[in-house]
């Protein structure tokens, strides 16, 4: 270790102030959690930051959602850029502009400048996901929009308090464009008060330690994180790693996965990400702006250095090239509200794969995709007569790991702190009865270490009129993949009236679908991808999975080549048939590469004849089908099969 590291503060003062900054930022988070009006914030879609006078982030909250990481300094800088010297004590600003460093319109940032003796020294920033920002669709997620005009209220930096005076006219103008405006005013107040509480705390620190020490600590805390990150990177080998992940499609084109290409270079103590080769922006809202994509790179990297605090010091060691006009750097006015389900998660998971090669002890296969469903309409239950919004996101499976299975039923990597909602709360507030919220057997991607299991949530609409449904997801075709020989899990994609003669496959994104009383729906979330060759999985682990019905006896044989016989299910008694297991594993080993080259139409026919099922299509044959039209996606299949060659086949012996 290098001795006598240069730090302008003595180690005690430094440690005290560093923790003091963490504390004041977390205090902001706790306050908005307790006083907010948006249930999305309440379920932890928020973040907080202390930024310095230049807008650089000194500290982010410890419970912040991943997707906001590394974007808060950009919005602080946008305020500085627009207002310059016209920033005064008692001012409070608001911004949600994704083209200025924001993520999407719902993420509303409240920014309060902090002064000491008339000198601007810092900004307190509170970012919360407001439940609605106006636009054509409840919840402000219009999947089909190509530009932002219909999506919701775009707010470039605007002053809401001026020298302590509340600008009611401005606030009213903003919320008058949103559904349930009084709740949005509640959120505004809640966030503004939270920044005030942390401002007070910063003043306490200034009183105690003096302004010079505090300003030095602002720099030192960033420098410290930078040193820490550089020290870690120096221990790693130099080199370049490259991979591609895919969005499902451009709905205007149809068949064909949309590539996001990431080349990562580690050179001494810095990381360079180059996303050249990524596809041009697509004709729906699954594009991402610069700031949001950068956040995906930061968050993907951070996952492999979980103990390094997040601030601008960390961001200094990461350089990125995001080609303009592509899905990872969409320019105004291209729609980007779906970035979180789209490029963001692809970037993060691609980083997981790249880093799994560099830091294998933290290896992680792909995790399920963020999925959220919105139903908005009129509630006609007795004693209810109001507009309702059922807005729900799912848990799902995380990727297999170096020495253990992926976690079952977790929040998306987009925000591990995001909490899934209680069905009982939803049933009270909305005319939707949940029919199930359960783990899907066989949804974990097969591997030596299985991906975590996905979830199925289903529901029925009871008393509604004028009601529409939208879904924002991805990976119905670019199925959640395995690494180091592991296999994919199961596709996302929702069903209307499943199991009835009105059954219809809706896919992983659609909006403003009319639904009525009695309609039911079902939503599977994907499991995580597997890690390592599934034929090397310990049969004892497979039998435990069978007992718990994470894996069926049928798929134990197909995916793992493990033949299991039921003795007495009531007593959890099953046994492994050793000889058949050996033979089955040998048979799969001999044939599996051939299956992945089988003619797609032959495979499709086997599927139509019922000889193989949906999971066989994906895991065994690598064939993608559009379940809505029952047609083969030839181009997508080719891309998918190439991907399987790279991530799975290359590791099989």
């Amino acid at each position, binding site marked *: 270790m290098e*001795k006598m590291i240069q730090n302008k503060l003595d180690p005690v003062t430094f440690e005290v102030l560093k923790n003091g900054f963490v504390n004041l930022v977390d205090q902001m988070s706790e306050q908005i959690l307790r006083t907010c009006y948006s249930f999305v914030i309440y379920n932890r879609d928020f973040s907080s930051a202390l930024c310095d006078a230049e807008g650089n982030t000194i500290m982010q909250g410890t419970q912040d959602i991943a997707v906001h990481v590394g974007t808060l300094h950009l919005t602080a800088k946008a305020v500085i850029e627009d207002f310059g010297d016209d920033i005064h004590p008692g001012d409070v600003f608001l911004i949600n502009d994704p083209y200025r460093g924001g993520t999407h319109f719902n993420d509303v940032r409240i920014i309060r400048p902090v002064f000491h003796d008339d000198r601007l020294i810092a900004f307190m920033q509170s970012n919360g996901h407001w439940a609605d920002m106006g636009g054509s669709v409840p919840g402000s997620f219009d999947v089909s929009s190509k530009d932002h005009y219909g999506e919701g209220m775009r707010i470039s930096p605007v002053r809401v308090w001026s020298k302590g005076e509340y600008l009611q006219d401005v606030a009213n103008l903003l919320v008058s464009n949103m559904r349930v405006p009084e709740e949005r005013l509640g959120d505004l107040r809640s966030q503004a008060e939270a920044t005030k509480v942390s401002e007070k705390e910063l003043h306490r620190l200034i009183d105690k330690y003096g302004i010079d020490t505090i300003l030095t600590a602002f720099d030192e805390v960033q420098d410290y994180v930078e040193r820490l990150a550089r020290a870690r990177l120096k221990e790693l080998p130099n080199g370049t790693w490259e991979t591609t992940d895919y969005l499902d499609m451009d709905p205007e084109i149809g068949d064909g996965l949309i590539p996001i290409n990431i080349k990562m270079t580690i050179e001494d103590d810095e990381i360079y990400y180059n996303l050249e080769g990524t596809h041009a922006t697509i004709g729906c809202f699954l594009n991402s702006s610069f700031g949001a994509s950068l956040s995906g790179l930061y968050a993907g990297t951070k996952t492999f250095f979980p103990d390094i605090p997040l601030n601008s010091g960390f961001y200094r060691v990461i350089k990125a090239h995001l080609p303009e006009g592509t899905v990872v750097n969409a320019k105004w006015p291209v729609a980007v509200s779906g970035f979180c389900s789209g490029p963001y998660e692809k970037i993060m998971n691609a980083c997981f794969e790249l880093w799994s090669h560099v830091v294998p002890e933290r290896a992680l296969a792909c995790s399920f995709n963020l999925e959220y469903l919105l139903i908005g309409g009129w509630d006609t239950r007795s004693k209810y007569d109001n507009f309702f919004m059922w807005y729900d996101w799912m848990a799902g499976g995380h990727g297999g790991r170096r020495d253990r299975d992926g976690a079952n039923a*977790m929040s998306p990597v987009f925000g591990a702190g995001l909490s899934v909602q209680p069905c009982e709360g939803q049933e009270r507030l909305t005319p939707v009865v949940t029919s199930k919220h359960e783990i899907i057997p066989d949804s974990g991607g097969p591997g030596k270490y299985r991906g975590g299991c996905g979830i199925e949530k289903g529901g029925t609409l009871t008393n509604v009129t004028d009601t529409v449904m939208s879904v924002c997801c991805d990976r119905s075709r670019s199925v959640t993949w395995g690494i180091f020989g592991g296999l994919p899990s199961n596709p996302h994609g929702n069903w209307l009236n499943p199991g009835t003669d009105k059954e219809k496959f809706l896919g992983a994104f659609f909006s403003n679908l009319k639904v009525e009383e009695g309609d039911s729906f079902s939503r599977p979330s994907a499991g995580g991808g597997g890690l390592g060759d599934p034929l090397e999985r310990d049969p004892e682990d497979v039998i435990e999975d069978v007992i718990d019905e994470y894996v069926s006896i049928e798929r134990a044989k197909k995916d793992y080549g493990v033949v299991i016989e039921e003795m007495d299910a009531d007593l959890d008694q099953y046994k492994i048939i050793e000889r058949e297991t050996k033979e089955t594993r040998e048979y799969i080993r001999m044939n599996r590469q051939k299956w992945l080259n089988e003619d797609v139409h032959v495979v499709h026919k086997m599927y139509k004849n019922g000889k193989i099922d949906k999971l066989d299509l994906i895991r065994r044959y690598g064939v993608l089908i559009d379940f809505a039209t029952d047609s083969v996606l030839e181009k997508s299949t080719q891309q998918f099969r190439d991907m399987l060659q790279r991530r799975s086949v290359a590791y099989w012996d």
Partner: protein
Amino acid sequence: MTKYRVAVDVGGTFTDVFVFNEKTKDTLVAKTSSTPTNPEIGVINGIDKANVSGEEIDIFSHGTTAGTNALIERKLPKTALITTKGFRDVPEIRRGTKLDLWDAYKDVAPPYIKRRDRFEVSERIDYSGNVLMEVDKNEVKELAQKLRKRNVESIAICFMNAYVSGENEIKVKEILKEELPDVYICASSEILPEIFEHERMSTTIINAVLGPKVSNYINTLETKMNTKGYDGDILVLHSGGGVMTSEMVQRYAARIASSGIAAGAIASKHIAELCGFKNAIGLDMGGTSTDISLMYEGNLRVTKDWYIEYGYPIGFPSIEIMTIGAGGGSLAYADEGGSLKSGPQSAGAEPGPACYGLGGVEPTNTDANFLLGRLNNKLLDGQMSLNKEAALKAMQPLCDQFGYNEYDAANAILKVANANMCDALRLISVRKGYDPRDFALVAFGGAGALHSAYLAKEMNIPNVIIPPFPGVAALGCLLVDVRHDITQTYVADVAEVKVNDIEEKFKDMEKQAIELLEKEGVATENMNLIRHIEMRYVGQWRSLAVSIDRPLHSLTDALASFHKEHKRAFAFSDPEKGVEIYGLRIEAIGTVPKPQLPKEKPHGTLVEALKEYRDVYFEETGGFTSTPIYNRPDIPVSSIISGPAIVEQLDSTVVIPPEFTAKVDEYKNIIISLSKRGEA
């Protein structure tokens, strides 16, 4: 015959028996090793050691970590969950979150009941309590057969929306009781009829996995105590800060989950009140961790948001206790970025701090306190001696890193450790809207009194109280009443709700409360029922509880209290905004007579308590300073001691830094505060 009150606190390592003689008001603490496999053996050993016979015991109360340990170690009976079709994975899906957001290799603990033991039945109730699907008797009977075959010992029943109507749950419970008469069965609607399926199911499951185990243990203990001649009830401390009898332990076993740590909070409340403080922060600092609690205006803070293991909440109200990884054994180190850190890793009991000479090589708080002369080189009346060479050597890496000498390093370690504890004190005080200047700090546990004066100084807490014994927590078990909390989700807009309707609901709940207290043998004149109402601004998600009148005539006062509490907690309120009721709660208290701790008259002089002068390091006086060392048992009450000074007793050391003055009160508490000008 002499009558004694006995409190037993069974911890992970030691069982403390606190005996209070009702006639002489004398107290005695006996310590024995805990016997984790059969904790009752340790309890009986401790009582024998205290030399008290069963006939002499008037009241026997008990705090135990048996529940906590059973959960953490997963030593649980074979338990099944029965739930609504489609929802058996609720305890595994939880809310999908994890404690460590960024570490993909740190998992949430697995569910208490594996998927293979989670069963479903066809039934459904909607949000308003209507039965959408009836229970199928035959289906339940078939399931009972399967459970019998599997030798299930305990069953948790939790159905969707059972907080509105327990009709289906009770039907299933009745069938199962008939089919499986020897199995422990509990239903969510009878335990905690509150909204949100995961939280209610989690509480019910914890109740079911602890039920047979904890009630067996209490029954065994009761039998043993009976053979020793004690014929009263065993009162068991629960996390809500009250006690209940063994019969109720069976029903509300999940309330025992943190019985062990509640005692310390209660003891610190009592001691602060004895000293005349209504606001106090309790700081129980041991070898590896510190438990912090807060009392405001005579009430300990209560939370409904707690767990033993992250992800598995227990919905019963509990005294809010914050546990942090800071203790005497916390390790100090420099990280790669050049930052000095303390904890949460700890040297533990083995190898222990470097100065114990048992193989520890990294520096701990204990090493730092020892090097600075604050700890004697002989501890526990000379039974243990500390190794200075080892402590000096342990400081070396920090000296190299920061250019310190060993004593600067030791001083820096303590400052960082103190800063960490202050961060925790801020979380429970400033962050919740409490001003530390209005509080006293009650510091105990083996290491509490070494650090407390500095913590108070940093936090601007005017007074520190050091109770006579560091193991004072056991006393907490003697200081509580029988107590139950009856809660009910109740959602209504204040502008529309009928006050009569709330009154009726409260009356129903009070009827239940009285039944519970009667079962506990509480006489009517000793019953006290307190009503609380949870409120929030319409549209908000979290609620705040305020206490209200009985009987209820209007909501005006409740509303005023709500706005005031919102302002206190969050620095703003909005009296113009609509307010919504979210839940009702009855605090049912059966008053138990409390011991009167004795007051002592001064005898002897302070000089007689002076053991020696020792060089002790204080940054304030420029380094090592000749400092008087006192023997605590010999210090007369009403003494005043100016800092710097050290007060030693068998199992703890009190540091009175320069600029501070200590007074010994008539209960033998040491009260430390910043010296007024001219006093020091």
